[in-house]
Every structure is written in C-alpha cells, then in structure tokens.
C-alpha cells in the first residue's frame, strides 16, 4: 500500500508535522493482550463494592431499578451499538424507528407533546431547558428561579452553563414553602421557574396552579421529574409544564458509577423548533412506504452553526434505546407496578425507621407526601452511620446529605425501590437500631 501512494515508509506520511515534536516517546505502561488485560480488569473491578453484593439504599439521583434481561440483549446487537447518528436514514431505519417509538413513549410518560431523542443526562437536560427558557421567554429575561430542592448537582450544572450567559440563578435557599409560594417570586425578569418532583429529598411537589402563576408572568415552568414516579402519578404535562426533563438512568440503565446515563427532554409543540438535539420524524420513501428520518436538522449546529439551539451532537441514543426496551418490556402495567412497589416499600421503610428512638423521618418543611426517597435525621453524623452500615452490616446506606447541604451532617437520604425486599429493609432498620443505640 505504501508503494501505491509512492512512499517508502510510514514515517514519510508525517512530514507536515514539525520535526521537533514528531514521534514523541510516550511513557505509557506496556501493552497487554486481551487475555492478560482480562485478569487485570477483573482485579480492578473487584476493588469496587458492587451493588450486587448486598442491599443498597443509595439513590440521590441514581437508582437501582429492575432491568429486564431484554434490555441488554438488545443493546448488545452490534447493528445498534456500533452505528453512528442516523444521518443516512436508509441504512438506519432500525435506530430511527426505535427513537420514534422512544419519543412517543416519553411524550406519554411525561404528558408532553414532543420529546427529543436524548440528551446526556438529567442535569444537562435541565441546563438546556433553562437555556431554552432564556431564549424563548417574552422579552429579555435573565433570572431563573429554582427550588432549593432541585438536585444540588443539577443546580451546579445549570450554574456552570449560565456562566456562558448574562443570566443568573435565584435559589430560594432560606426557607422553602412549596411550589406555589415559590412561584410568587417570579417577576418580569424571570425566564423560568424550575421545580423538581419528587424533589431531591423525595417530597412530592403539588404543582396545582403553579403553571398559571408562572405563565401569567410570561415565564416558563420547567419540571425535573423521576420517570418511575410517572408510572403512578400525574405527569407535569397535566399541570401545564413547558419543559419536562428527567434523568433516564432509572429506565434500564445500570448505575455504572454515574454514567453514561440518559437525559430526557420533552416540551410543548410550540417549542419544537427550539428543542435541543435530535428529533426523529415520520416520512415516506420514493415508493410511499413509511420510513423515519432525523428532522428539523435546521435547529442543529451542522446547519445553523453559531445560531443552533444548542451545541449537542453526540447524545445518549443508546441510553434512549435502553429506556425504550425497558418501557416496552415493562409495559403500561409493569411501569405502574414498579412505581407502586417503590411507593409502598419506601413508606414501609420510613415508618419502621421513624420508630427507632432518636431517628426522625422527613422533618424538613414543607411537609409533603413522598415517593421512593426520604430523609432520616440521625442522632449521630450520617457519614459514620454509612461507613458502619457498610463495614459492619454489609449494607450500602443512604446519602450523607452533609456532602451537598451544609449543616445537614446528621441527615441521610434513603432510597427504597422495588429491588429492596422487606428482609433488606428490616436488615437496615435493625442495623440502624444498633448503630444509634
């Protein structure tokens, strides 16, 4: 092949590169064969305590839900996972149809009209929703009002994204009185109100009437939601939300130390041209057969460049495929059932834990219903409890709220899903009993 291009050596191909920086000696470990590396990686992986090894009650934005075996079977199809973005629709009908179906299911789940075909994760979906609101709101608006009970990491990501704008985040840190109260902070400068339900501490926000107040001020209502919650409870779309975002990890994606995940992003039809990322539309081929294509590419960077609605290119399509297979396998009844189990089990756990002397559950204001997750106030600091739970009882406890919320060192956020058996919950309760005694 070298001779075909008239060269004598591979090195000759690189004469354009300044000689003084050409062919550096890289100090990397020696290469390993697949066989040896297999040993190495298994060893390394065993130095992580896997969620398979025992009960876990850790959530805080990443959950252990049941993943039917169908999901990974589909993900492992090479035709899917080794393909690129379906720019050439005739060779990509499989992925395109799967994404069209995903969009449909996400619309149903969230009660919205259009869904994109994925963003990176829940946090970046939220950041993009905020940018959409800044762009779409009436007049020039620079303020984003956000509930203090939005996931702190999501808030951090929004903060980062806003650094590229002249807008700012107003988080009602002092005292949170609920969604309606918060909506009253909105003024003519405000582009959006951001709420999360169930919120970071597990509480269900009552969204009734919120959208009206928000819209009356010409702002948008953005709601972060848990897709599992939507199996049982009214979706934000029913309450007039303008954008609904969520992390899709709960829908068939393993925790994987936090990534890759899936960002769900759904909105109203009127914002379709401001939607970030890919969108699959139905069309016909030359013979009138149904087919699918990426559509409204005019919103995207490869066409609009500096004027695109966002810079997202690679998204999380495989995550969206996982979510689609998960939803299709669970189906209407399965999704509802998962939500019910989460509800009942978390309530059972909360009730049992609140009986432990010295432990209190959900003391934060405002009191509200909760779903799947709740807060324990402990007589000792949460970090110690979590460490002892793991080392002495083999249980992954909850999340030490002190890590995110200053002054909350003795509070632990606990998630209970359908994966936690009663026996596991009782084990946690018994362990807590002993630890706080």
């Amino acid at each position, binding site marked *: 092949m070298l001779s075909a291009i008239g060269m004598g050596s591979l090195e000759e191909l690189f004469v354009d*590169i300044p000689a003084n920086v050409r062919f550096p000696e890289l100090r990397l470990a020696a290469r390993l064969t697949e066989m040896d590396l297999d040993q190495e990686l298994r060893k390394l992986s065993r130095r*992580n305590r896997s969620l398979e090894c025992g009960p876990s009650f850790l959530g805080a934005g990443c959950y252990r839900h049941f993943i039917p075996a169908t999901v990974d079977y589909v993900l492992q199809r090479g035709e899917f996972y080794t393909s*690129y973005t379906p720019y050439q629709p005739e060779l990509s009908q499989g992925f395109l149809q799967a994404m069209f179906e995903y969009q449909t299911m996400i619309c149903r789940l969230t009660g919205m009209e259009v869904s994109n075909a994925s963003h990176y994760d829940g946090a970046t979906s939220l950041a993009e929703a905020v940018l959409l609101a800044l762009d779409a709101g009436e007049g020039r608006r620079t303020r984003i009002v956000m509930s203090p009970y939005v996931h702190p990491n999501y808030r951090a990501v929004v903060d980062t994204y806003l650094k590229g704008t002249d807008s700012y985040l107003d988080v009602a840190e002092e005292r949170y009185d609920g969604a309606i109260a918060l909506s009253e902070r909105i003024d003519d400068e405000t582009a959006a109100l951001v709420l999360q339900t169930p919120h970071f501490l597990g509480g269900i926000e009552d969204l009734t009437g919120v959208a009206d107040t928000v819209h009356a001020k010409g702002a948008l209502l953005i709601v972060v939601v848990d897709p599992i919650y939507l199996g049982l409870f009214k979706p934000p779309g029913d309450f007039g939300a303008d954008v609904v975002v969520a992390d899709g990890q709960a829908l068939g994606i393993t925790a994987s130390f936090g990534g890759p995940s899936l960002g769900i992003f759904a909105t109203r039809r009127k914002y379709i041209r401001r939607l970030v990322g890919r969108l699959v539309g139905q069309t016909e081929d030359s013979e009138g057969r149904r087919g699918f294509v990426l559509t409204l590419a005019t919103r995207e960077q490869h066409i609009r460049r500096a004027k695109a609605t966002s810079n997202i290119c*690679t998204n999380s399509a495989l995550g969206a495929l996982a979510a689609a297979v998960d939803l299709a396998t669970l189906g209407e009844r399965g999704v509802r059932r998962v939500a019910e189990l989460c509800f009942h089990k978390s309530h059972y756990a909360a009730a049992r834990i609140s009986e432990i002397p010295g432990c209190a559950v959900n003391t934060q204001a405002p009191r509200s219903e909760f779903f799947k997750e709740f807060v324990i106030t402990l007589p000792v600091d949460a970090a110690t409890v979590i460490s002892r739970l793991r080392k002495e009882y083999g249980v992954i406890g909850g999340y030490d709220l002190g890590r995110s919320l200053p002054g909350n060192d003795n509070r632990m956020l606990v998630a209970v899903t359908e994966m936690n058996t009663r026996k596991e919950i009782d084990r946690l309760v018994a362990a807590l009993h002993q630890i706080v005694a």
Partner: protein
Amino acid sequence: MDEPTLYKLSADGRSSVALPECDVDESKIPSRLMRDAIGLPELSEPQVVRHYLRLSQLNYGVDTGFYPLGSCTMKYNPKASEIWARLPGFSQVHPLQDPESVQGALELMFDLQEQLQEIAGFARVALQPAAGAQGELTALLMIRAYNRWRGEGQRDTILVPDSAHGTNPASVTMGGYTVVEVPSNKTGDVDLEAVKAACNDRLAGIMLTNPNTLGLFEERIGELVELVHGCGGLVYGDGANLNALTGVTRPGDLGIDLMHFNLHKTFATPHGGGGPGSGPVGAAPALAPFLPGPVVERSQVALGEHPVYVLTSPEQSIGRMVAFHGNFGMFVRAWAYLRLLGAEGLREAAMHAVLNANYLRVQLAEDYNMPFDRTCMHEFVCEGAPKGTSIRALDVSKRLMDYGFHPPTNYFPLTVKEALMIEPTETEDKETLDAFVRAMRNIAAEARADPHALRDAPHRTPVGRLDEVKAARDLIVSEET
C-alpha cells in the same frame, strides 16, 4: 420488510414481565395525585425481542461493514471491552458510594487522566464532559473564567475556521462569545493573514481542528499558535481528529492550551447510534485550575498495597458539567483500549489510519476531484461529483449503500463543493479498501453512463430514498394512537 411500531404490536393487558408481590403492608397512595392510564404499549417478551431484533437488522453499524464516515472515526471497537464494561464491579457501582468502596473505579479514572495527559501533552485532564461538544463548551467556559481571573474579561471573540465542525461555533455562542469566522486558504489551511487581522485584545482565542476537517495537518501551526498567543489569545484544539496523531505528535507540544478528546472516536468506545460518547478536556498548566470537577487525585495515603484515590475539585474549577463523574462506562472501554495498544500500538494505529486514508485518496483521484493535492492525515475530502459529471454527493452516497457500504460524510466541511469526507480508520484491511474503491469507480462509471439513474438510489436498502422535506413539513414526531 416493514416492522410495525410497538404501539401497533401492543395489545391491552399483555405484559412482558411479572413483578413480585408486594412484601410489605401497602400504604395509601394519595389519589388526587394519581394518574389514569399512562399510554404505554403492552407486549409479551417474545414480541419485544423480535421487534428490536428485526429493527436491528434494519440498521448498519461498524460490525456490519465499512463505515468511512469522515470526522466520526468509525473504527472497530474490540468486543472484550463490552464484557469488561459490564463487570459488576464497574457497571453496578453507585457514583455516591463512599470513596473507600470505589477505589478501583477511581484508580481507573486517575490512570485514564494520566494516560490522556501523556498522549496529548497536557498538565491535567478532566474526564467529566459527556461528549466532544460538551468538551468544547467546557473549554470555552474555562477560557472565560481564566480571562476574568487574570483581568482580561473584555476578551469576547473566538476565531473559528470556516472548515470547523458545526459544534465549534455553536459552543462559542453557548460559551457567551462571538464567533469570528476565518477562511481557509487554497492549501486547505487556516488563512494566517485573516488570523493576524483578528488578533487584538478582544480576542479570547481560536478553535483549531488539527488535522482539520479536510484531513490536513495545519502546515503553519507554529506561526498560528504564536500569533494567537502573541495577542493574549488561547488556542483550543478540537481533538476529534486525534486519531491521526496518537504517538505521532502531541497537541500540547504544538502549543495548544486546551483540547477535548473524543473517547468515542480516537479511543474506540462505540458510538451507540449517536451516543453516549465521552469528551474529556486536557489543559496546559495555566488553564488546569479551571477544569471542571471533580477530578481524581492520588493522595499520599495508602490502603494496604494501594494508594488512596480521591475526588477533588480543581482549585478554580468552572464547576460541574454533568450530574456525576462523567461517562464512566466509556472510561472503562477507553482505558482498556489504551492498555491493549500501549505507546507502540497507538502510534501504529495513527500510522495505519493515515496510510489507509492516503491509499484511498490516491486510488480515487482518477475519478473524483481532490481539491487539495497533499498527503492527507486520517481522512480526506473529495468532491462528490465524479469527474465529468454533475451528479450530487448525495447520489453517490445513496448509491454506495447498494454496494453494501455506509456512505462517507456528505456536505461537510462546507468549504468544499459537494464534499465527500472519507475516513477509513486503521481497523480496515486492504481488501475492504479495494472493494470500496471498486464501488466508487463503478459509481463514477454509472454516473457518466446514466446520470439520472443514480438519483433513484438506493435500491437494496429496506426503504428507498426517504423524503426529508415531507418529514420537516408534516412534523410527525410521535405516534398518534
């Protein structure tokens, strides 16, 4: 073969998967909050499996065949990585577990940071960004923070070559900067005069893709970097094309201050039909404190034979780019790939990527116009119309499908008329390249013989050419049922 949608296959009351009985007392669900039907389909497990199996067969991936999609580096992804990323000690680990229980994951991340630093010549790498475009945004926000910190907050423009990938200008805008486009010259390089003209104290920097999207190594990279640095600007490298350079040269050594990596291109993590990817960012010393966090550090403490790794935030971090630590599943695959190749393998890979591209370039030159008559790097751009025809690049692309190949990238970069951007990658063998050359030559012959016939291609795909205009007009983006 038409596959009905999930909703068409669905039948009420059918359910694929049974869930356990509730083993605790039930609590009262607040009925005022409860929803009615969700509207999800109901299928049996065999229906689900068959549906997606059939859909998969309507899709083309690298595992199916040659995928010379320029700029996307559709290289073969080793199968073992898929097994490794699924080991329970990697896939079943929660990002908020206490650090003592995730030392293996942290060590892997640390080591990946170190390897990327070494390969590209940076002081520090942060793994968090979820894809290349987010890496770009990260870097722009870092430039902003850095300029504020050093009292140069007035810098508000970023130069973007006209051949740049669309994410570059889009990221500039998201980063709060104004795009100033710089033209390419006739050798395909950035026009240095234009850069010079833009060099002033409003210039925050330039986004440079090198090799650029024409597949060409910027010949005067040294001067260019000097120019920009000279006026206090920074040079950002779009690392999407690093596949040509691993072990060959280090962007940091070329004077680049910041760069994103595409693990899903250079480091063989699969593209997943559009993602997930992973876009770590590397930075020169001055910029390193501004990297997003957390990153992994090796502490002085040890636990048995192993040093202890911790998550920390760089001192002047711009903050967080995603909810957790980035796309860890991709880190595992990229790390494995790096360990399989080592320094030696990385250089071999780059060399073969470049060899393959040049081989194709030379073989195709007879039938397709090559706007730049130079040795290319890992990819090249030709004009889509076979010589002596006025066929469109799109027609050639669609026709290639009939020959069993995925088409190259179309209409990008915008600077070449009817561009076809061809990137074979190093994982293809000569037989495949030769078969592709034969197909391209046949198509050229077909175009000369009967230019109209190609307009109807493809013929051997599950559907014929799809009407994109209709899609954008009808905007049917979910199923009505």
